[in-house]
């Protein structure tokens, strides 16, 4: 009984922290419609700020905490609202999600840039060592008491604020009927700002309370948000009282698992994974929602022409061959990732770009693929095929419960799945002869096909290039197929698709499994290249930048896969070699790219590809340019100069060719009618161009709400 009491207190104080954090999450989601994945990261930054003030600068506990809670955090919240969130009005759920994920990644990057993870930092609990003794064997620490009391105070204050103050009631009114609040004269932008300020303060409070037990680690603290989601899901992300109930379930469960879970290595990961399992259970019982009708968006992904697709595949293949033949051994291994992880990125194109669904755990599927390949393969093709099938099946299982719910829940489910793998399944010791990573790392044999073994780095890279090219062709074929058009239709209007008999869950499940299987293939190729892999290669936080770059690159274009692969594994690692000062900002960059490009939803890859059109269509200049690049390559193979010279030479050749082709194509003075979808690429944006585009896309209504927001600001 004493033990029960002790762990009840442990559970209650954990519940209290989750309740505080998730109430902030619910507040902003309900009032502004932004599901803030970076909410936990705000708490994390606050915990670091508290450490800086209290531990590093020696400011006493109370003033330091008050400064963070009532000055820094609210200011940060207001800043977020003004700079980022306000611009998201009228965008799709996916765009908002990308921006908040980018924010999460950028904030973790920022924390690691400012507070080097190499240095150990500790924050002591409040009144360390002091406790209240209840009976001879049962006591509760002051820190636990303070935590529980804080949650009660927060609950009471929120209740009072939301029912007894005019601003609080206005916040609920916005949830009920936003247009009507405007007609009442409420400044809804101020309400939104206040809710961001309040929400960030709540995250900060949670962060400061939990840091003494969870440790000052940027990733761990940021991912506590996943536990808070479980609590918030109880209230369908909208109800505060049910969120508190959810927090109790998750927190007490955590406490009792801490106390009563048998000491077994196999179960050790169950406790950290518990909130996520609760979340899955909640998703299973949530009622379905009504079908979604048309979402207006600016995105447009035209089907690639056969010729364009063939050219693209040829360019990738040539690029891969040049890389494989000119790079040194270690560099080959490093850059081969561009293609292996590129396949994982490519797997997001049918899912996110065509079907409009979100998966945040694609790299986890890759990890499953890699582990299965390592266990089964022994270098055979069958092993690789098995890894693809297993990844696809697991993908189906993960997606199934949330496919009938809205997109945000699929995002939640995939995020949670990645966390379960990270925290538990990937770290399991052998059970019945199987473990994902039996001794922490896993060795894998190179692939042998028809007696030919891909055993050198160069061969590995060529293999990955071939696979990447094939997968690109597959994605193009899918986009041009009937199934591809079905997915695009589904993305536009679920309601319309259902009315001619399309089974939505079936169609979605298919594309999700296809995508997971592709990720599995990418993972197994990656494993073979690296020859030894660990669970750390497939962490959630490594996968998120991949997702962001695919979306930023234009999720509906096959080239987005290459964009993400090159961006993450070629461009980003090269930055510090340009200027060493970039080393520190390197982790933040993908986040910044995501935040910035969240505003140009069709992405960048298409713009780049389109700008090459004059060259593609001019056979003469094209052949000269190709020959020129070939010449650079040939001379490089003779070791006359190094790789940098070759690349610079090739880029200059292509740019000169492009310039020449453009001049030949457009004689001086000739005006050109620019197809709708390429306005802004072939011609700079102007107000009238934007207006034309909006008219064509029937976006007046979206713009209306945007202008509403803009005017609200004056």
């Amino acid at each position, binding site marked *: 009984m004493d033990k029960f009491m002790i762990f009840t207190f442990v559970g209650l104080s954990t519940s209290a922290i989750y309740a505080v954090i998730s109430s902030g999450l619910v507040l902003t989601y309900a009032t502004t419609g932004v599901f803030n994945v970076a909410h936990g990261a705000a708490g994390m930054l606050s915990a670091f700020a508290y450490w800086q003030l209290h531990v590093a600068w020696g400011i006493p506990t109370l003033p330091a905490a008050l400064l963070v809670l009532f000055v820094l955090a609210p200011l940060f919240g207001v800043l977020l609202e003004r700079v980022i969130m306000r611009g998201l009005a009228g965008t799709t759920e996916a765009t908002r999600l990308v921006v908040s994920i980018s924010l999460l990644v950028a904030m973790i990057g920022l924390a690691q840039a400012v507070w080097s993870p190499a240095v150990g930092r500790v924050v002591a609990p409040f009144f360390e060592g002091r406790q209240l003794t209840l009976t001879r064997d049962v006591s509760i620490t002051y820190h636990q008491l303070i935590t529980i009391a804080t949650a009660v105070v927060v609950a009471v204050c929120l209740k009072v604020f939301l029912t007894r103050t005019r601003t609080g009631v206005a916040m609920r009114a916005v949830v009920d009927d936003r247009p009507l609040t405007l007609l*009442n004269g409420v400044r809804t932008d101020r309400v939104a700002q206040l809710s961001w300020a309040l929400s960030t303060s709540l995250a900060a409070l949670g962060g400061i309370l939990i840091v003494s037990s969870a440790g000052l680690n940027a990733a761990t603290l940021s991912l506590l948000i996943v536990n808070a989601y479980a609590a918030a899901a109880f209230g369908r992300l909208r109800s505060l009282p049910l969120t508190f109930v959810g927090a109790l379930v998750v927190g007490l469960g955590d406490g009792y698992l801490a106390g009563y879970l048998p000491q077994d290595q196999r179960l050790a990961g169950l406790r950290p994974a518990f909130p996520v399992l609760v979340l899955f259970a909640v998703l299973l019982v949530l009622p379905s929602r009504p079908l979604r009708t048309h979402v207006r968006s600016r995105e447009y992904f035209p089907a690639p022409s056969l010729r364009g697709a063939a050219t693209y595949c040829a360019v990738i293949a040539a690029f891969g061959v040049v890389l494989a033949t000119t790079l040194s051994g270690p560099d080959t291994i490093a850059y081969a990732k561009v293609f292996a992880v590129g396949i994982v990125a490519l797997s997001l194109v049918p899912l996110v770009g065509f079907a409009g669904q979100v998966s945040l755990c694609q790299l986890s599927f890759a990890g499953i693929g890699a582990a299965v390949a390592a266990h089964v393969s022994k270098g055979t093709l069958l092993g690789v095929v098995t890894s693809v099938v297993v990844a696809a099946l697991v993908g189906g299982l993960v997606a199934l419960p949330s496919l009938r719910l809205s997109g945000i829940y699929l995002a939640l489910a995939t995020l949670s799945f990645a966390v379960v793998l990270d925290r538990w399944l990937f770290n399991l010791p052998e059970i019945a002869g199987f473990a994902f990573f039996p001794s922490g790392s896993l060795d894998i044999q190179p692939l042998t096909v028809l007696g030919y073994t891909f055993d050198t780095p160069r061969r590995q890279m060529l293999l990955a290039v071939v696979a990447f090219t094939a997968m690109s062709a597959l994605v193009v074929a899918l986009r041009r197929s009937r199934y591809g058009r079905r997915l695009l239709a589904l993305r536009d209007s679920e309601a319309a698709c259902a009315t001619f008999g399309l089974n939505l869950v079936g169609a979605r499940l298919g594309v999700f499994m296809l995508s997971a299987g592709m990720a599995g293939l990418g993972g197994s190729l990656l494993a073979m290249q690296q020859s030894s892999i660990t669970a750390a290669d497939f962490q959630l936080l490594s996968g998120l930048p991949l997702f962001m770059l695919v979306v930023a690159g234009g999720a509906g274009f096959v080239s987005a896969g290459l964009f993400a692969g090159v961006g993450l594994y070629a461009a980003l690692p090269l930055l510090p070699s340009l200027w060493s000062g970039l080393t520190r900002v390197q982790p933040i960059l993908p986040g910044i790219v995501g935040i910035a490009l969240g505003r140009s939803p069709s992405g960048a890859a298409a713009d780049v590809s389109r700008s090459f059109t004059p060259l593609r269509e001019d056979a003469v200049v094209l052949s000269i340019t190709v020959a020129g690049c070939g010449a650079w390559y040939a001379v490089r193979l003779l070791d006359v100069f190094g790789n940098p010279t070759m690349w610079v030479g090739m880029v200059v050749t292509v740019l000169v060719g492009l310039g020449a082709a453009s001049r030949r194509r457009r004689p001086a003075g000739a005006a050109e009618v620019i197809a709708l979808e390429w306005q802004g690429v072939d011609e700079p944006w102007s107000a009238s161009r934007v207006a034309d585009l909006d008219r064509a896309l029937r976006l007046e209504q979206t713009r209306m709400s945007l202008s509403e927001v803009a005017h609200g600001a004056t």
Partner: protein
Amino acid sequence: MTVLRLEPREPAAIDPPLLELRRIRAGYDGIEVLHGFDLTVAAGSVVALLGPNGAGKTTALKVIAGQHPASSGDVLLFGHRVNGTAPDRLARSGVCVIPEGRGVFPNLTVRENLWMMTYAGCSRGDVEAIAYHRFPRLAERRDQAAGTLSGGEQQMLAMARGLATRPALLLLDELSMGLAPLVVEDLYAVVAGIAADGVSVVVVEQFADVVLKVADRAAVVVHGRVAHEGTPAHVQALLAEAYLGGTHEGKR
């Protein structure tokens, strides 16, 4: 932009009209609904907008309220051009809109709904006193969620804003929708009372009879334009002809 607080006032010949719409064009999804809509509302008068479904009456109200942009034309309040002003700003300046069908926050209690009305610049005590005095049933249900009220009670609660916030201009959209005739009569009695205090009122209504009793002027809207404008008696006589003309005019 200057902040302009409009007060209800007695009609006077030298004043500019309280509200003037000049050649308003507006539409949705590329379909133009208003094709040069003109309307003048003298201070302190009640103007009824009549006409068939889809003629553009509600759109005209939304343009006035700042909820929908006009693609061209001017909206003038007391001679000030207010195109593009946000609806919440107009609401604080004395333009009160009671939208069609759902003028209340369903999950807020009656008291909380009334509280929201104070953003237009009046005290909470006054709003409650005025609302409960005119609609005693609301007082009985002050702590009940508005969504659980009957349709008539909800419309009373919505009307309380027009009554209690003392706007300069009150815009009513389809007040009678879904309500029993007795309730409708009671609500129009309230409208008449508000108008008697010098508030200018624009009423959109499909049913001419009730509204013509309280209106000073009436306009018949056909295919996005004011086809006829005049005294209620004059308009009533013209109404049939207006509909007749409308259907033969073609659809655009």
